[in-house]
């Protein structure tokens, strides 16, 4: 999710579409909410035209902390991954 957000601000639905089916629409908002509570992403309401109807949509972007956590997770994953020689 942080990878998808790194390039630009996105809506929840855009993330679902960009993930190619890996993210589900039913769980994306709760996951984003939890990530925001933990400080991994930040969000803002979209700028609305006067007279627009409906609730304002929310745009998400990664925080510096979130990107740091992602990089640390990648390092950990790579360090723990079994190399072919070690897998025996």
């Amino acid at each position: 999710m942080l990878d998808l957000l790194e390039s630009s601000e996105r809506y929840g639905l855009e993330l679902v579409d960009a993930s190619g089916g890996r993210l589900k629409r039913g769980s994306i908002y709760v996951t984003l909410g939890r990530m925001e509570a933990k400080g991994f992403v930040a969000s803002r309401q979209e700028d609305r035209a006067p007279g627009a109807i409906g609730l304002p949509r929310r745009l998400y972007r990664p925080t510096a902390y979130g990107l740091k956590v992602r990089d640390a997770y990648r390092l950990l994953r790579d360090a723990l991954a079994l190399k072919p020689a070690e897998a025996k």
Partner: protein
Amino acid sequence: MPGNWVARVGLRLLHRDTFEMMLSPAIADLQFETIARSAARPGDYCAVFRALLGALWFDLSSDLLALKSDAETIALLTLLQTSYYTFMLVLLSGLGTGTLAAFEMDSELVTRALSYVAGVTVACLLTSSACFWPPRRTCQTRAED
């Protein structure tokens, strides 16, 4: 507008932050798609309901964690209430009027007495927890119609 009634339900049940972070974006996307396609699909509503359920679970778990800090006070209140009501039950049952010797203390009686005490304890625990439960919004915010 589709989803407004879900928003009203969410506003009543959820913390404001949880509503803003988890449910409101789901409803906003539903409304955006409905305007774009001029009709909402059942799957779109399904996503909103799942967001509502997830947000409710998030709030419930957060509330239970918040109650941990008051655990000692809740335990003390529960103990006081349980003692009081158990004493009343003992009085009402006649055990406190000197007729204890007339009772045959078999396992069935003990089991029944313990189940009464357990019921009283649970009821007291619920009322004590309710006193310390984090506050919800009490007034309904008007959702856009």
